[in-house]
């Protein structure tokens, strides 16, 4: 079987930008397999998203139904499996977002497919590279079976470029939906005007050394001055200083910005796993022996109390002169 189905997550206006790297990876895999890319959008009122997806994929299957308003693994995973079967595809690909991580393995189970998580490179028709052991090892893996599933790491594939001619949109038949008694009761979105952590050009993260949640305010100032996203170490999240959706690391988000500024973060293995792909890393820590300095391009040994206000002032000065 040939062809790759890509799960494209949707917003009101189109597909989520986090899905664009999955379209790129799917294109690479389709080339290996000698097939085409079919994008799948699922939800209630996904017309705009389907049109948007068609800019990147030769074919789009849209499952549009009021009962699909809330994204649920119980209802979405069977439709992903359906799209694979309907298009005779040999692979299902999506991005390793919180939604992708939730839905794709369930779809793999329904397809009887082996799955590769957090793929960073497509090596062949069924071969991938992915990190394990908190990024301290890279595995080359091979998937057996007629159908394979992969979630890809957003930061490791460039966003897909639009096709010369948009693809065709086809409506998928939703049929019976059984949420198995599962329902989304509420969604508490973190209100932020900052870019998404996974996509930001600059990320400023604070660690346990920030001591208290209110001290993150000064990091927010620095973040906003640089037009970046705010992150945190697991230790800071664990201590309840900031919400867990800011967590950068093995068990949080993986980021690879142009500039990563780690403030009062010691650099535990599990944190490094989430940020060592950054282009330029700055570490500010009062402990000269902190492991974070081993991966930092520029290290400054001092307290955040001393460094951050001065850094903000200095960058303002630079911007004023520039």
């Amino acid at each position, binding site marked *: 079987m040939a062809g790759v189905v890509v799960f494209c997550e949707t917003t009101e206006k189109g597909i989520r930008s*986090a899905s664009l790297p999955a379209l790129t990876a799917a294109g690479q895999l389709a080339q290996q397999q000698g097939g085409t890319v079919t994008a799948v959008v699922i939800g209630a009122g996904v017309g705009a998203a389907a049109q948007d997806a068609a800019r990147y994929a030769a074919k789009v299957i849209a499952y549009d139904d009021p009962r699909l308003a809330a994204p*649920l693994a*119980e209802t979405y995973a069977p439709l992903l499996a359906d799209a694979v079967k309907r298009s005779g595809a040999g692979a299902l690909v999506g991005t390793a977002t*919180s*939604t992708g*991580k*939730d839905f794709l*393995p*369930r*779809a*793999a*189970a*329904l397809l009887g497919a082996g*799955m590769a*998580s*957090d793929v960073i490179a497509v090596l062949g028709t069924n071969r991938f590279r992915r990190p*394990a*052991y908190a990024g*301290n*090892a*890279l*595995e*080359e893996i*091979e998937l*057996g079976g007629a159908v394979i599933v992969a979630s890809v790491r957003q930061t490791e594939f460039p966003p897909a470029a639009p096709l010369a001619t948009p693809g065709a949109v086809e409506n998928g038949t939703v049929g019976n939906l059984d949420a*198995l*008694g*599962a329902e*989304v*009761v*509420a969604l*508490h*979105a*973190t209100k932020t005007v900052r870019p998404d952590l996974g996509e930001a050009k*600059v990320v400023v993260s604070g660690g346990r050394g920030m001591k208290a949640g209110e001290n993150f305010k000064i990091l927010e100032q620095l973040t906003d001055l*640089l037009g970046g996203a705010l992150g945190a170490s*697991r230790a800071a*999240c664990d201590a309840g200083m900031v*919400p*867990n*959706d800011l967590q950068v690391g*093995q*068990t949080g988000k993986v980021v690879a910005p142009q*500039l990563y500024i780690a403030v009062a973060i010691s650099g535990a*293995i599990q944190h490094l796993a989430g940020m060592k792909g950054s*282009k*330029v*890393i*700055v570490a500010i820590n009062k402990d000269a022996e902190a492991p974070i300095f*081993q*991966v*930092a*391009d*520029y*290290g*400054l*040994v001092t307290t955040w109390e001393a460094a951050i206000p001065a*850094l903000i002032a*200095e960058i303002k000065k*630079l911007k004023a002169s520039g």
Partner: protein
Amino acid sequence: MKILVTCKRVPNPEQKLKFAGGGIDLGAATWQVNTFDEYAVETALRLTEKGKGGERSGEVVVVAVGPKDVSQQMRGVLAMGADRGILVGAEDAALDADAVARILRAVVDREKPDVVILGKQTVDGDSNQVGQILAGLLNWPQATFLASVRLAADGKSATVTREIDAGTEEKRVRLPAVLTVDLRIIGKKAVRNEALAGPEVEWEETQRYASLKGIMAAKKKEIKEITVAELGVSPAPLMKVVSYQAPPTRKAGVKVSSVEELVQKLHNEAKVI
């Protein structure tokens, strides 16, 4: 309330990995319970308790897949308070998430728990798949990456909060269901069984450690050993690791002596601001 909870052994994540001939040499590794599975055990115990150190109602069954040595980690979990263990003998390194999930499904078929709780991922394989695959195979609802869980007094549903990219999602699932837990689940107010504990109940902000009494009691608890063949499951994996490599290392950079120097370097040398 009967809860099945997983306990995978992982090599100590603080130890440096030894690469040898395209593989990882774990010969000298020390093993421990996957942290997220410890959180799963803590969650399961809280769901069967009336409060901190209070009376218990219900059963927590721990299941592990691996070689005989895993009984050591399992004893530790029994010492935390779990009631009994099931050890499915297998070469754990040769299994993939699909095989583990199929083994767990066979255990679920035998044990018929009301809830299965797993860590959201293991910290060695980092795949984050088993719970979701298990739920798919069972055709049960799933609630993944939990920050909190509240079991309804009638024991028929669970209301949870999940950590997602955009913030927090509140989800309700009918039981039986598969739950996977994230780090917030060990918060003071994160877990409650409404049939047993009131809203005032608070827990320690950490997973519990085994008490001496717990360790003594664990010695008498049952660990049932069973083979994959007895469960009628083929352990053949769909995913095979071809090779392991060390990732490219970053070379350590320079230490700067002042904020001014840092900003100059970021502007003129790295050109990122």
